[in-house]
């Protein structure tokens, strides 16, 4: 059976989407699954930082693939073989986790903006990543808001996780995304609340948001100064597995793994 595509999206920036995506992918890889993470946020890539990949180590990227200069095989960065520089990341040694990064070189980002995107090629890249690496799960870190790359990844997803903060702007934006996801027939639509103030009643937040969108809220993650202090230097949930944020994140992992 073909691997599952899990798109992680938020209508607005700053929701912690890349952090959540990287940690989710890492936790799923820790269960022994073969996992890929694609950064389709070509305009403002960032998830590579969480996997300890910087410009000096970055080889071929999604940008090269979209320009026909690289195959997906050449883009895959084996995280399990490059776990240095982080106590949390070191736990991924030997795990089957690959990152497919987007370029952080200014010229390559501007080239995509200037020349546009071949969506046939982008979709072929996403699908062939699953087959070439024999993945169980492919996580897609999308650009916030709704653009065509995001819509394509939503349309091709088995699971869509929409991240929102308990904030009125996020709530309104999420309702747009939920409507579109439903009209694209995404089979498993999940919500995840991040950055909830500790003074809130999390169970109440979960119930209210679940009722508002008629979709399961997989977890409510607290606003955490410890996570902010980590400054994307490491995979927080691996480094601090007993932290409330990590425990809440693992409830999302259970939802993902439960999808048949």
């Amino acid at each position, binding site marked *: 059976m073909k691997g599952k595509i899990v798109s992680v999206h938020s209508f607005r920036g700053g929701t912690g989407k890349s952090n959540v995506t990287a940690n989710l992918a890492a936790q799923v890889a820790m269960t022994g699954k073969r996992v890929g993470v694609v950064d389709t946020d070509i305009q403002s890539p960032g998830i590579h930082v969480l996997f300890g990949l910087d410009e000096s180590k970055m080889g071929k990227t999604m940008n090269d693939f979209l320009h026909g200069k690289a195959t997906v095989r050449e883009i895959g960065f084996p995280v399990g073989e490059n776990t240095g520089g982080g106590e949390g990341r070191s736990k991924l040694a030997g795990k089957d986790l690959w990152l497919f990064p987007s370029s952080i070189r200014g*010229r390559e980002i*501007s080239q995509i903006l200037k020349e*546009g995107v071949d*969506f*046939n090629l982008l979709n072929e890249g996403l699908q062939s990543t699953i087959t070439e690496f024999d993945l169980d799960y492919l996580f897609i870190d999308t650009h916030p808001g709704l653009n065509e790359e995001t819509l394509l990844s*939503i349309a*091709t997803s088995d699971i869509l996780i929409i991240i929102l903060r308990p904030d009125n702007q996020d709530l309104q934006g999420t309702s747009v995304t939920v409507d579109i996801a439903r009209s*694209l*027939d995404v089979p498993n639509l999940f919500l995840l609340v991040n950055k909830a103030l500790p003074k809130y009643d999390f169970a109440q937040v979960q119930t209210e948001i679940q009722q508002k969108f008629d979709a399961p809220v997989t977890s409510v993650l607290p606003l955490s100064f410890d996570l902010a202090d980590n400054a994307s230097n490491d995979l927080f949930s691996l480094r601090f597995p007993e932290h409330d944020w990590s425990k809440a994140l693992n409830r999302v992992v259970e939802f993902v793994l439960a999808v048949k």
Partner: protein
Amino acid sequence: MPGVFDRLDKEIKDKQKEGGITPLDLAELPPALRKIMRLMLRELQMNYPRLCEVMDAIPESDRLSRDELQEALTTLTQQQWLNRIGEGEKAIYKVNLRRREGSKLAAGIWSALDAKLKKNPSDT
């Protein structure tokens, strides 16, 4: 001399240059057409027997009849949202997504930006 696969590949690429559907249009499609497009997006390409096989594997309530499937394929290929390559049962169907055009900013802006970025050694 180009082989049959090269010729097919060229035929596919030529067809993909024409028309195509945008990811946003997918949301506007009638359910039967959208169902096929979603399947095709995941499988990349399928011939008719394979499409029937995949269709038979989904729950009966969501399944299209052979007539509905045929009708949907005709509509999708007429619109050039699916490309049909080859003839008969061996013909394959492939999604044709419309390319996102590049920025409409004046070319001078891009060349100025490019020149500026070239000066940054880490970007070369």
